[in-house]
């Protein structure tokens, strides 16, 4: 590690992986509740498990992004972090607030939690992904602002690279758009309209800037390709992302009481959203093929290439599958949406965070790369998790197609639960594949403890 303050990234990465494990365990609980409806009822009702599952996802990705930024910014700006102490303090604040929130979901009825945490002051709770109590939301804003202050001050005193600039734009955007989570009008149409300004403008907007810069950083390190070339690619990719993704928000404005011209705007622009992901795939493979060095960390390179492919498949192809308004009319809010959500989040965000962890963690632990044995194990975990996610997606897609047919498209539509009963075989298959995913994740965690003494040579 070039700058000692980069070491603050380490606890962030460890927390990210720990919370990821929690997310997957709750995913398995929910998967089982899809077929054994009363599993763990009333101790953990489905809605609680889902809140935990999705909120853990968001929090572990945020831990990953923050760790990545603390690792990358000193190296990019060629200066020590403005305040490592502040970074560590914020780590504990965020971890404790996150853990307390999850425990609140699990131990207190949601209505009571809302009552005791000030939801009556500003009503923000009970909306998908934004279920956090008001005090947690305020805490997120505080942590984000301190984090951004720390990094911005670092950047002001150091070298300004395009990668760090794009990363900082993404992170500032993340904080700014989160502020819309405090706006919850009684008018349901407006509520939904601006809810998407957090959700869509995060994952199909500013988060992609973070994704691009993380990937670009790792590719520079593992391939040794000229920074000018990689940063030019980065700008091209994020240009394509935002010129398609901003108006692409319209694909959420088809059926929620918004003007019908959004069916055109949303369909056309979101149909173009796979292009930046395709460019990212080409970019990753191109850079690795043109590499000027053989970096000893093969696992990190594999994760980087995997991010390109899986984000294109999950976000690009599976997004396109149901984004055109005439198709979405039938698929909106079915298992097709769930299929897309799973592969897109894994392929784009989970994988890019694992990519930077895979690259940075060995260095934070004092070696250029892990031992051969450890890397082989890590690559096994890559294939297990990735192939499991492909099959989870395929099974949910099959469930979704049947659901659409039975409940929405056939000449004799049947009720929701009757349709669910008919497609339960695919939920069983999904659950089995989910267990494989968990095995992959456990293998990934084990790889951190394998052969630590046998160090690979620095390149």
């Amino acid at each position, binding site marked *: 590690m070039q700058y000692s303050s980069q070491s603050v990234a380490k606890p962030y990465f460890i927390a990210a992986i720990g919370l990821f494990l929690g997310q997957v365990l709750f995913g398995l609980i*929910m998967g089982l*509740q*899809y077929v*054994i*409806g*009363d599993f763990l*009822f*009333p101790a953990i*009702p*489905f*809605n609680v498990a*889902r*809140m935990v599952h999705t909120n853990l996802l968001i929090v572990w990705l945020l831990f990953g992004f923050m760790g990545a930024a603390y690792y990358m910014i000193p190296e990019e700006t060629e200066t020590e972090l403005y305040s490592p102490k502040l970074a560590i303090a914020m780590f504990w604040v965020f971890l404790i607030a996150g853990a307390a929130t999850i425990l609140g979901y699990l131990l207190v009825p*949601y*209505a009571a939690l809302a*009552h005791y945490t000030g*939801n009556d002051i500003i009503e923000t*709770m*009970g*909306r*998908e992904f934004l279920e956090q109590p008001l005090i947690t939301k305020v805490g997120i804003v505080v942590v984000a602002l301190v984090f951004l202050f720390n990094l911005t001050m670092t950047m002001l005193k150091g070298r300004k690279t*395009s990668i760090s600039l794009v990363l900082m734009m993404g992170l500032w955007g993340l904080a700014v758009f989160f502020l819309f989570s405090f706006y919850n009008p009684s*008018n*349901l*149409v*407006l509520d939904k*309209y601006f809810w998407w300004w957090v959700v869509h403008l995060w994952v199909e907007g500013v988060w992609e800037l973070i994704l691009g810069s993380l990937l670009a950083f790792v590719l520079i390190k593992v391939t040794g390709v000229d920074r*000018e070339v990689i*940063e*030019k690619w980065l*700008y*091209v990719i994020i*240009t394509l992302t*935002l*010129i398609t993704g*901003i*108006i692409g928000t*319209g694909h959420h404005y088809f*059926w*929620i*009481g*918004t*003007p019908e011209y959004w*069916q055109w*705007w949303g369909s056309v622009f979101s149909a173009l959203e796979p292009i930046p992901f395709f460019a990212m795939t080409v970019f990753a493979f191109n850079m690795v093929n043109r590499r000027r060095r053989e970096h000893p960390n093969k696992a990190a390179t594999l994760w980087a290439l995997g991010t390109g492919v899986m984000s294109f498949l999950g976000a690009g192809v599976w997004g396109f599958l149901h984004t055109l308004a005439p198709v979405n*009319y*039938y698929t*909106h*809010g*079915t*298992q097709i*949406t*769930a299929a897309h959500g799973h592969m897109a989040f894994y392929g784009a965000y989970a994988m890019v965070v694992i990519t930077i962890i895979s690259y940075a963690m060995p260095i934070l632990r004092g070696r250029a790369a892990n031992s051969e044995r450890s890397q082989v194990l890590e690559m096994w975990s890559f294939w297990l998790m990735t192939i499991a996610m492909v099959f989870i997606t395929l099974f949910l897609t099959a469930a979704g197609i049947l659901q659409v047919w039975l*409940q*929405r498209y056939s000449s004799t*539509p049947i*009720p*929701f*639960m009757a349709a*669910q009963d008919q497609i339960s075989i695919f939920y069983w298959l999904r659950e089995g594949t989910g267990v494989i995913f968990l095995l992959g994740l456990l293998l990934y965690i084990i790889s951190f403890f394998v052969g630590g003494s046998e160090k690979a040579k620095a390149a």
Partner: protein
Amino acid sequence: MSGTFTKSMARNIFFGGTVFFALLFLALTFDSMQTIPKRDNHANLTPAVVAGKKVWETNNCIGCHTLMGEGAYFAPELGNVYKRRGPEFIKAWIQSQPTGAPGRRQMPNFHLTEQQLNDLVEFLKYSSEINTANWPPNIEG
């Protein structure tokens, strides 16, 4: 990407393109705000509906159900449940939960008061009357 296309050109296109499309999005949003009142059923946004929305939110209904197709996919769509089932059925259904049928998906009992049940039904009635461009395709949601 040939040598004539430089990084600074790419950066300028990024900033220019982003600003242009962000402004276009804001313009479309401005127009939507003018048009939405014709579709959003705000005339029926009574105090009971507002209270019902709070009941909906503070019991995390969206954690299992969809509302206009958004939410979780574990339980039926409720944007049109008022039209599908009617007010009395909805209230009776909520009060009779959980069914306790072995192996079936269970909905918790939220111990709602009569007032809260009425408000929630008013909210679902209001929701069902928003102009959603004829979605969902049929009454089953």
